[in-house]
């Protein structure tokens, strides 16, 4: 019986062995020619080619578009204007008052995005951390709750936006409940504060499952004996959290911070479906401004949209570097 299995396995593996030997010949030749360092580059090449085609080339094209004007899309039909689009975006009498800026909607969107990122990322990290800490405990139905918190991540952003729109609109579920409780209904999405709060709440609801999972993985990687030692020393839970959990979770927290920050700055789809950027422009964020300027407006301006996206990208790079520097510094301090 064992011999038959062995033979069947050998027969099934034969094509793979043959393939490996076929690949082995050119690989050996390549390694002889390029050395071990060159082999690493050869293995990275396909990935880098995809990265180049889908990231670097569009990025370079975007830079080129930002130096042109006109409504046409084909570069050959567009007029070169140098840094005119950037100058137009940055022209402002008082940056605190977007209305005084040449492109007031850009600055309104930038201000909205800044406020959104601060509030949303803070809420996201705190809520995800608390959820991860709870789900890391030996509670009943832990697997079920982990699935429940992760479920919204699987939904399409458009579905998320629509679900919450149906809940929050004038004749939505929330108002129905309020009326049944004898309360006055609210037109949630017509109020600037509520609409902004809804944008934050919905995006946290939609994405926290993902960040919770990252933090949960970090929590489970912390050696149990550290907690046992702290318990034997009679250390309180708050001190345990501050001195053991938080420092050891810092790499995961840094990842969560960077990802949430990038996602926060790029916020668009679910909020666009939920509020359409309104009321007025109170939930219009940078990505919507870029979309409206470059694509949605009947008299579109792709050059201006490209310049705005380059500026947004620069801000993202700076923020990401700052986050990484801060988290590495914090990580370096270790457990005390």
């Amino acid at each position, binding site marked *: 019986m064992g011999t038959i299995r062995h033979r069947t396995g050998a027969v099934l593996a034969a094509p793979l062995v043959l393939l490996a030997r076929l690949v082995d010949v050119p690989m050996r030749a390549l390694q002889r020619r390029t050395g071990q360092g060159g082999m690493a580059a050869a293995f990275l090449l396909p990935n880098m080619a995809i990265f180049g085609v889908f990231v670097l080339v569009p990025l370079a094209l975007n830079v080129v578009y930002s130096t042109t*004007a*006109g*409504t*046409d*899309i*084909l570069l050959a039909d*567009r*007029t070169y*204007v140098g840094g005119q689009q950037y100058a137009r975006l940055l022209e402002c009498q008082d940056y605190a008052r977007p*209305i005084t800026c040449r492109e*007031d*909607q850009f600055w*309104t969107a930038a201000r909205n995005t800044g406020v959104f990122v601060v509030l949303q990322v803070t809420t996201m990290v705190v809520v995800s951390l608390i959820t991860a800490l709870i789900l890391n405990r030996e509670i009943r139905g832990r697997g079920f709750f982990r699935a429940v918190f992760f479920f919204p991540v699987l939904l399409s952003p458009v579905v998320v936006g629509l679900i919450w729109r149906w809940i929050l*609109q*004038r*004749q939505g579920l929330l108002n129905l409940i309020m009326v049944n409780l004898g309360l006055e209904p609210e*037109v949630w*999405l*017509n109020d*600037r504060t509520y*609409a902004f709060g809804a944008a934050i709440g919905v995006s946290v609801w939609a994405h926290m499952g993902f960040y919770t999972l990252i933090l949960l993985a970090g929590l489970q990687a912390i050696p149990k004996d550290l907690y046992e030692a702290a318990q034997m020393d009679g250390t309180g839970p708050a001190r345990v959290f501050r001195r053991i959990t938080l420092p050891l979770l810092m790499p995961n927290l840094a990842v969560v911070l960077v990802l949430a920050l990038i996602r926060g700055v790029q916020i668009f789809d679910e909020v666009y479906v939920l*509020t*359409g*950027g*309104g*009321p*007025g*422009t*109170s*939930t*219009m964020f940078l990505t*919507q401004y870029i979309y*409206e300027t470059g*694509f*949605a*407006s*009947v*008299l*579109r*301006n792709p*050059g*201006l949209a490209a310049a705005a996206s380059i500026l947004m990208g620069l801000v993202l790079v700076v923020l990401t570097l700052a986050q990484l520097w801060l988290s590495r510094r914090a990580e370096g301090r270790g457990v005390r």
Partner: protein
Amino acid sequence: MRKTISLAALTAVLGGAALAQDPVELRMLWYSDGVEGEVMADLLERFEEENPDIDVVLDNVAYQVVQEQLPIQLASGQGPDVARVASTLKSDAQHWLDLRPYLTDEQVAYWQENFGNRLDWMRPDGSDAIPGFLTQLTMVGGFANATLFEQAGVDLPGEGATWDEWVAASAEVMESQGTAAAFAIDRTGHRISGPIASYGGNYIGEDGMPAPIDDGTMAFLTKLVEWTDAGLMLPEVWVSAAGTTYRSGADDFINAQIPLLYSGSWQVANLSTKIGDAFDWVAIGSPCGTEGCSGLAGGAGLVAIRYTEHPEEVARLMDWLASEEIVREFSERTLFLPAHAGIVEAGGLTFQSEDPNVPPALDRFVQASGETLPMADALPAWKWANAYYGALVTRVSQVMAGEITLDEARGLMDRDIADAVENASQ
């Protein structure tokens, strides 16, 4: 050798036959306000039966897709073979195919005779191309929920009633029946341009370029903002969105959330289908301003795209769809006003609807088409109309949301329009 030659000949014959049988596939981008998608699918099936060498795929999409995604495809030299277009008929005119080289002289004469008076709406200034035809003539105008008015004991304002009178009457209905608001106007600059003309507004300068925002325009915008502040105009339509996003108030009217809707004749089939016998509704034309009672004529056009690889087949399809018999059937089944001069002159259309609200509504829109003011008549063929519409809707929404004042909006609208013109001219 003989065997080889025979085999090659057989292969060539069979291959040739297979190629001959392969129909040319044409793609038509289409959107529907009412039942016209179903009617068009039906017509295309008949066209394919009569023309087995052509296969037409109907891509029925949301209006927003035609408005936002088609222009991007066109600007990059791509797109479907044929598309139904409304707001960008003029501004994207450089992308339409001139059908004349693919039509006979007799066919060209037919097109000129029956669609010639509105071809300027869809071709570049100074061009005499035939890029397509209007599938329907539209007229901006209002609808009132007659049942709600009756239940509230409020008389429908009569002929010549002003905007103020209509809004006041609708406000009474709102108070009495507990509706969400008194009225709604679709969120687009196009819809408010007829009323603006009624208050003496003018967009077109003497040189044909955009004129600065004038007092007539501001007069109606001021009213619009005041009505919104007072909770009379449904805020969900205008306030709850940014930029130029299109939103219609039709669903709120259909759900009896507002007693008055200002939209247009293309909604007749939609209202008839969705409201059924839930309540009675009437078309009211356009309320009056200080200078007149103007709506805005318009239409959706079926245009051929110049990037098609099959211009001859496209021309055959377009000519078939533009034939008097098909246009007549399309209009009767969709409840759209035809833009075919021969049909309009001959009259006798039998609109296919058992809804008693439909015939008087269509009659009212026909009557309203004779009440438009010169500025409104000029807009459909004016290249910069969309620049104006975009600035109006963006800035007025901001005023309604309390972000800027009307005076600030006036300056910003002028600047937005100037920027749009400058960018489009580069």
